[in-house]
């Protein structure tokens, strides 16, 4: 992944989460992964098109997702209902949107697709032809991995 893209994603994730959860997440070391990864329980995917093609995946456990949704809504949610799902999708949208805006300032123009949320056990997400950059973040609510797999449109 182009090095110029890395920082906007990392920053966007950090800033939005900090703002929404009122707590700064802890950034762990970035690393690359050959894509085909088991999903922690809840996955939100936002597609990217434009100068690049690919997607951003927000991966977290069910418990973490519920806690984050609870915090964002100001009420305790115990079941992954429509409200909780919508909240998590909104979070993904915000992070991706912020990253895209920052990238636009740098001169790269991307479009994003509406987010899609996947919930379930024993899921796996695979891509061919693209490797993924993993940005691990840790919050009091649990761990979240942001998985960016994009390639240049040739």
């Amino acid at each position, binding site marked *: 992944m182009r*090095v110029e893209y890395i*920082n906007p994603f*990392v920053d966007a994730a950090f800033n939005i989460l900090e703002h929404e959860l009122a*707590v700064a997440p802890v950034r762990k070391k970035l690393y690359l992964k*050959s894509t085909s990864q088991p999903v922690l329980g809840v996955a939100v995917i936002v597609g990217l098109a434009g100068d690049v093609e690919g997607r951003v995946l927000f991966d977290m456990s069910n418990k973490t997702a519920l806690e984050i949704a609870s915090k964002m809504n100001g009420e305790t949610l115990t079941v992954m209902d429509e409200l909780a799902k919508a909240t998590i999708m909104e979070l993904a949208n915000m992070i991706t949107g912020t990253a895209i805006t920052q990238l636009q300032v740098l*001169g790269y123009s991307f479009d994003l697709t509406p987010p899609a949320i996947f919930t379930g056990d024993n899921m796996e997400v695979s891509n061919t*032809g693209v*490797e993924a950059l993993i940005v691990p973040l840790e919050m009091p609510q649990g761990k979240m991995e942001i998985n960016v797999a994009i390639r240049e449109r*040739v």
Partner: protein
Amino acid sequence: MEKVMQADEKVLNGPDLLDPEKNEKLEYVDFKMVTFSLGGKDYGIDIMNVKEISRVNDFTYVPNTAEFVRGVYNLRGDIISVMDLRKLFGVDPVIAKDGLEDLIVLKGEEYMTGAVVDTIDRVVGVNSSRIQPPHPLFAEINIYFIKGVVEFEGRLYIILDVEKILSTGKTIPEDVGEEVGNVIRSLPQISSNFSTAPANNFQNKPVKNVNQTMSTAIPVAKSSPSPIKANVAAVKTPSITGNRVAAVTASKPSSSSASSSRTNTNKKTDSNKTTDKLYKNNSTTANKPSGVRGNILGDVIKKQQSQTDDLVSQMLEKKVAKTKSVASGGSKLDQTKKELENQLEFYVNKVNLKWIENKLSSTGSSPSGYADSEKFIADFLSRSTSELWSEVMLDELIDLLPDDKSSTLYTWNPGCGVGYESYSIAVALSERYDNLITKLWANDTDLVNVSMAPTLALDETEFPVRFSPYLEEGRGGKKFVKQITNNILFEYHDLTHENPYPEMSLIIARDLLSYIEADKVDYVLNEMVSKLKSGGLFIAGENEIFSHPDLIKKESKLFNLFVKR
């Protein structure tokens, strides 16, 4: 005042149309900032957030406020609070003779605040695409107030985030301001691209031979402080109450000497004091109650800081352990293999085995330690490793390049490190072709190195004259022109993973395979060959030996050249 007037005129009149060379880039200006200096460094604030500037001295002090709050000020009827940015960032103030201080009135979404700075300079207009976000290495530090950095006419401006400054009074404990100040002071060290010093050791020159390694950890320095080691240490240095970075590693002295030698070349003479203050702050804050408004944010930042310290010290320890390890047992060859792997992440595999064996029989003993290992493979590495290519190399490459039959020509330069080779190739391509779209994909797994590549800065003595037309003055030295940088895509990519690249006409992978683990060499080689077009060129390391059914060896004076069937 006169100076300000002139500067305004300059901005108002726009580019000098009579002498286009004066304004190298007639760029569209869409971001203007008011620039000022603080503690010897240049800062900028988006002009949209600035209501006005003035010189004043009649603040009304308000008791029981944070140290950086100067009080309030009557701005023609409006009472605004005034903060001293110098106190906020922990910098010694520069007081003018007449007692007047420069005030910038910031306007945020909710209210206005005044900010006292050392000296307000002028309005600078840039194209917002030139604004760079803070370096990715800052990942673990809370760069709270910084929106980005931009370079203009040879000076580096740190753009502050006004919203964050305005909300300072409300939610941020004092310690954070200090920590941020520490961070800002250490900024030029972390990214040597933004160095304030002219050519000196601490320029963007990574430790030489780690340039082409596939290491993922921050490269370790040898005995003397090298820029990257200083970087790591500098990352560690900012600390806040309760978190003594005090005596973790020997690298701390080197980072402080780096910072003091850097700031020495600065115009302001109080910069030395600034460095000293770094230590002073650390000790005096130990006695302060931790954060009058200490809240979750402060605690989390502390936790984050200690975790960062952990991460960094882990990495350092890992590297120190490696340097200490002495391969014991096994044959001389095994020892050599282990040592080269540990010290340099150089893997003995089928492409270099013969060379290593020969070398071993001539030296008689396996290398031990970092310096020894470096010396051992010094002759193996291809010419002009970790530096720009010589003119003869450029010429030979240009001779080898095919005629432009199609409209595009793609090149792949895996294991690019900091980018010297990539830039050399790009220059050769630029000289050879006029009407071709030439894109160069350069990648490495060393995130730190490859992140610095797009903004690589060279000092005066570092480049062959041939490169001059492609370089322009920039912060920290000479940088490559847009015409070159636009065509290079630097990526953080692991070659053992799938790659998304198109078919290539040219692959330059000199010594790359020697930095790939033995069991992955075949995979990587096959990947590269399969991406190569028929008739495409492949350049390997000068001393690497391999054969591939689809590659035919070709004559070349300076390169280990192959052509694909």
